[in-house]
């Protein structure tokens, strides 16, 4: 049996398969379908300092091999999470990691501080890449200066593993990855959704209430793989790769491009057991290729 353990900063994962924030609720939504304890980690829904109702309906438009969403970080706020959701999920036999978002640096810091106090919250994922909120969100992740500033300030109050989730909606994603590494991030996760748009040709109306939204699903996978590969060659911290992963072959592709771990996102909607199937596929692949540990595969593209 191949070794599946990987490390993200000081955080040890039993295996590299995790689920992406915004596609996996708080894990409980999937309890009918899979044993959550099999996963390396679960990134729960984007959480903000104050509750948010999110954007108006319609918030979703299916596109070829993917979907656009403009949910807009609907959540009940960090206090509700700490008081009501965390107690329900803290004893799952996997790492529960909160995705933290905000409109101002003060919001991010206050939210991270509250989460730092939770014993069984070993890490947070700083979301500087949500394309669906008017203020903040992606704005922090598209300039080096603001990405550096928010990472620096959160780093001061959050001593555990700090993962920064990068936006692909930039000219050069490696620049952003470098500055968040310099400011003390333990890992980067990429990519968040691509800013996209769809129009109903009969009514001529945008399909989303917000006009634009975030594109995810297998249609973005080759771009995401390319970005992971670029970032792998730009930083020393581990990468959590994601973007359209549907099966174990996709996951191995992300690992070869330089991901230490991966997140399954939108495909959870189609096959809620896909994360566990992907884990089993990775295990079989490693055995078949006589690879002792998944770590040996990270970034090991054969260019010959």
């Amino acid at each position: 049996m191949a070794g599946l353990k990987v490390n993200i900063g000081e955080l040890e994962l039993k295996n590299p398969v995790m689920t992406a924030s915004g596609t996996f609720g708080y894990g409980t939504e999937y309890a009918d379908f899979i044993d959550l304890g099999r996963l390396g980690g679960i990134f729960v829904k984007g959480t903000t300092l104050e509750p948010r109702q999110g954007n108006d309906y319609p918030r979703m438009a299916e596109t070829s091999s993917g979907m656009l969403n403009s949910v807009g970080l609907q959540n009940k706020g960090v206090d509700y999470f700490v008081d009501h959701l965390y107690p329900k999920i803290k004893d799952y036999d996997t790492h529960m990691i909160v995705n933290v978002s905000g409109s101002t640096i003060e919001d991010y810091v206050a939210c991270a501080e509250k989460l730092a106090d939770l014993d069984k919250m070993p890490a947070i994922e700083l979301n500087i890449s949500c394309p669906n909120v008017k203020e903040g969100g992606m704005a922090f992740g598209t300039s080096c200066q603001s990405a550096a500033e928010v990472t620096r300030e959160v780093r001061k109050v959050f001593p555990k593993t700090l993962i920064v989730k990068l936006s692909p909606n930039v000219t050069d994603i490696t620049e952003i990855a470098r500055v968040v590494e310099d400011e003390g991030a333990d890992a980067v996760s990429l990519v968040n959704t691509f800013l996209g748009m769809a129009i109903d040709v009969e009514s001529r109306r945008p399909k989303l209430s917000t006009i634009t939204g975030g594109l995810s699903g297998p249609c973005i996978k080759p771009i995401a793989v390319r970005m992971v590969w670029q970032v792998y060659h730009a930083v020393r911290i581990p990468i959590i790769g994601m973007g359209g992963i549907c099966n174990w072959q996709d996951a191995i592709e992300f690992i070869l491009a330089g991901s230490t771990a991966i997140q399954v996102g939108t495909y959870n909607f189609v096959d809620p057991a896909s994360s566990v199937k992907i884990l089993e596929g990775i295990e079989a692949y490693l055995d078949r290729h006589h690879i002792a540990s998944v770590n040996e595969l990270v970034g090991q593209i054969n260019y010959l």
Partner: protein
Amino acid sequence: MKVCDFTIRSNTRLNDRNHLLKISPVGNEPLPEMYPGQFVQIRVDNSPLVFLRRPISINFVDYQQNEVWLLIQRVGEGTTKISALSAGENMNLMFPLGNSFTLPDNKGNFLLIGGGVGTAPLLFLGKKMKEKGLKPEFLLGGRSEKDILQRVDFERLGTLYCTTEDGSLGEKGFVTQHPILQEKKYDFIYTCGPKPMMVAVARYAQQNGISCEASLENLMACGFGACLCCIEKTIRGNVCACTEGPVFNIKELTWLD
């Protein structure tokens, strides 16, 4: 909730756009309890561009035959693929999803109002009501006679009133223009169909002090409360139509505000 493969037992074309699929679990494993108003999510295979599952109402559950009935209206590529499946072929289902219509405890006058393919869940609801000794009545609307689906099945369960926009069957016009709504006093209305129709039905119910439940067809991705895409604005804020619905009492909705 679970995910499993079903075999198509039959696929009957009802009109130019609608098919009735009768399906059973592979291996004929007994069906779990299902309730009227619940839905399934069908995976669309062999169509790489179609990514998401298609949410489809449970039209009827025949426990004797161990069959679920689904009405499929061809709208886009996904539903076209599903409606092209033949007897003997399999499809993958996530089910049963969502809440259900409230079955009343007491006798009274119950009207089930449906439009187009939105009549689907009302057949199963009518069956459940009849089993409880209640007398459901149906008011179904469509563009023309061929759009009023499963008339024979509905007539077996209770009185059927129809409206068509071209007057080819029943009263000419929309369901809310049917004279029975003026002639008879109903205690409870259940409705499913195009949103403008349901809003008109909800307005009639509210004006006449009639309890009313509506089954929504919001666009959805996951179907089990994870993606937060299918939200409906309610008096409690935005809620998922897939888990807190698809059936809502109109008092909870903000349609008439």
